[in-house]
């Protein structure tokens, strides 16, 4: 699972959101590091819908324009949980290696 898909699933794990709210939430979750473009957002949303990871929660018309709210499905929740475990394991492994790296003579922080 790519980073945009992971962040979008994370954004939808809280409550159903529409497209622009997802972009803002992803920006917030990533500490301002990831700003999703609209093309990317809807390519990933379409793929996640096709895979059954998210679904449409409700639709409304705002300023004569369709606005859809998306929510996580049970499958999406499982995938996000599994991906979180995988990423945490990798991050823990990296942190453990880095702490050992810093303790070795000549490699400590300047």
């Amino acid at each position, binding site marked *: 699972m790519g980073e945009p898909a992971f962040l979008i699933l994370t954004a939808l794990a809280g409550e159903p959101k529409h497209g622009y709210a997802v972009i803002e939430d992803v920006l917030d979750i990533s500490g301002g590091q990831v700003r999703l473009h609209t*093309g990317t957002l*809807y*390519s990933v949303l379409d*793929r996640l819908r096709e895979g059954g990871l998210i679904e449409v929660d409700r639709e409304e018309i705002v300023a004569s*324009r*369709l606005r859809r709210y998306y929510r996580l499905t049970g499958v999406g929740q499982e995938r996000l949980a599994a991906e979180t475990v995988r990423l945490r394991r990798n991050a823990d492994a990296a942190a453990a290696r880095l702490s050992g790296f810093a303790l070795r003579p000549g490699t400590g922080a300047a």
Partner: protein
Amino acid sequence: MSEHHEQLERRYERLLALFPAAHRREYEDEMMGVLLAGAAPQQRYPGLGETANLIRCAVWLRVGGRGAGSADRYWASAAAVFGLVVCLMMLTYRLGIMGAEVLGGWRIDGRLLIVPGQWWLAMAGWTVAVAFAFTRFRLVAAAGAWVAALSEVAVEIIGYPSWPSHLVEVWWMLVLSVGAAFALTVRGRTRPQGALGVRRTVVMSSAFAVLAVLPAVDASLAVVTRYGDGGFSIGALGGYNAPGWLGGHHVSGVITLVPGLICALVILYCLLRAEAPVRRRLVAMFAPALALNLVVPPVFNGFLVSTQRFNPPVLLVPGQWVFLIVFPLVLFAVGALLVVRGERHAHLIELGRAAEREARLKQAATPS
């Protein structure tokens, strides 16, 4: 809405028009809302990064990348089915000829004939293509189909100067072969059983397998009559009693024809049971080869009848080559266009009906 936003909206509309129709139908309204929500108050032009992203995503979806709209998925499904069916057909054709010739030869003089080396490469290619067409290994299946198709074309091109009429007669098969190789290349990760259903895919493949062995059964059960002068004739059950080897054509009788017809109908039934959008695309894909099969004999009648009477044979003129190459391409393009336009038309009609229904319901709910 401010004039700035109207200009910006028009420019975004042009960018969104690059996306496939199905994707636009599903997400255009939403995407426009998001794009405008993210725009600065006086913004008139789309940002460079946003523009590049929209173009990149649109191109990616157009070439059938992941996340393609449903219409493009139908094309991918049809390509997967078309690729498999043609590869099965060509493999069946080659195996049928090989079985009938080897067993027919064995019936006549007790010796097993060796199949000409020129067909081994094509048979190997079709076998690999069929085996991997069911899997997500797109490149392996496509490579097998390309090797087989180009091998079929090369054999015909090599034989063309001495036997030009044969190239014209089998041109439709060459078109199918190259089309199948192309289809297996562009199908993406779609598998044919996804469109046909696993059970129908198994039934259809089994029908092809039966078709492949029927000529061998026919030849092995054929009646061989020997004459005192060393001559012979061979006749399959219910078929012609062919003196000699009937110009190299294998004999076929009731065993090939009756179960063969049943198998062909089973295959047709399996294809017709595919969902309607896939079925329409399959018709557009098969139409060029079927039309060539029907049109070439009357259009090239003079050429087919007379060319072999000359020594060396008369070759095709440039106009005839142009017809053979352009006709199937144009026919496919027209077919694809009709499918897309027809579906768009049906969608618009459906939208109109839904709007009418909604208006009637609103009217009924309004207190008089």
